[in-house]
């Protein structure tokens, strides 16, 4: 299979712990088979600066928690055919959404994160992008085509979904997916 006929796949890391990406990598030797069929065009594990056009499948880890991520997600949606929420943060908000319970302003969240726990020179870093009021799962912001829940989702499940999609079938999640 030549580069040009391979399926163009991207992965994005929003507000999450990167555990889902670790799980993706845990596909181990199956990655070699996968690599024959896909071309990874954008990912935190490769060095590409801008999200490319004409992507076939994008897997997104993490919830949408700030403005920068919101723009990124929208761009990815525009340029992708099949968008997949990868892991509980992307599917439910998960740990990143715990702050939603407090209904505070973004400022209060930052103070809780950076000022309150620190004993010395407490300060909110200026480089932090503006937070959204709530951390939200992806499908509350854009249309999502498939969901792979789990914290993290097992490598087997990720592999199953990708294999099914590459074979042109619809993955069946009943009894396979697992939250938490």
């Amino acid at each position: 299979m030549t580069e040009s006929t391979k399926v163009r796949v991207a992965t994005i890391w929003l507000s999450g712990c990167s555990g889902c990406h670790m799980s993706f990598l845990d596909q181990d030797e199956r990655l070699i088979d996968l690599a024959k069929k896909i071309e990874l065009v954008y990912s935190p594990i490769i060095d590409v600066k801008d999200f490319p056009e004409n992507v076939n499948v994008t897997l997104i880890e993490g919830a949408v928690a700030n403005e920068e991520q919101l723009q990124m997600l929208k761009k990815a949606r525009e340029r992708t055919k099949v968008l997949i929420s990868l892991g509980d943060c992307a599917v439910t908000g998960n740990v990143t959404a715990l702050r939603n319970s407090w209904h505070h302003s973004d400022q209060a969240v930052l103070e809780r994160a950076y000022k309150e726990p620190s004993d010395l020179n407490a300060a909110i870093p200026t480089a932090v992008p503006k937070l959204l009021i709530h951390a939200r799962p992806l499908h509350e912001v854009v249309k999502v085509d498939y969901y792979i829940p789990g914290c993290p989702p097992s490598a087997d499940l990720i592999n199953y979904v990708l294999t099914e999609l590459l074979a042109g079938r619809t993955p069946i999640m009943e009894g396979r997916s697992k939250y938490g």
Partner: protein
Amino acid sequence: MSVNLLKLKIDGVEVSVPEGTMILKAAKDNGIIIPTLCNLEGLAPYGGCRLCLVEISGSPKLFPACITPVGPNMEITTNSDRLKEYRKMVVQMLLAERTHICSVCVANDHCELQAMANQLGVDHVMFERKFTQEPIDSTHDFLVIDRNRCILCTRCIRICDQIEGVHTLDLKLRGKDSEVIMDLDEHWANSCSCTSCRKCAKVCPVGAIYIEGEPIGHTKNKEIAAFIRDRRNRR
């Protein structure tokens, strides 16, 4: 006393069931598991969660299997596409209603709601999830209630009343504001009637009532109510 056996069909399979048996039990005894969250053998059926709804041919209505007794020549469908779709809806509504974050919950991997979502293939929730701020009560020596995880199945209330017999627990308010309370909405430590028997924690399907410091897999016991009731009945 002779037991009257009724003939009926569950998912096309002909079965004989003693008169008075609830559909849920009749199905289970014949190897068909109908999903439920509020029902627990040994406690009076509640009919609240609506997961066990089944179709009975001849009626456009849906019936809760936990509380509908079998009838002669009934033809029961437990797993149509519509029922599957509706069960997914129930789980989604429960997940969206309060703060359900499996990864940081004490009941992770031992939660009936989580298992139900996985089993039914609820891979996302179509409604905006609520992140609630209901009070957590950890004043008791070892029992903790986190109402943000409560699905209002009332198993704890029923076991407290029907098995332990003290009725410490009940619901206050109504609708979406309903909460499990102790006595006159007291802190658990100040409860005048709680015997600290732990049965509420044993039957809680989720991580709303748990025992501090104890692995939840160790606490949970779905058979306790049926066991005690059975032994009592034999007396």
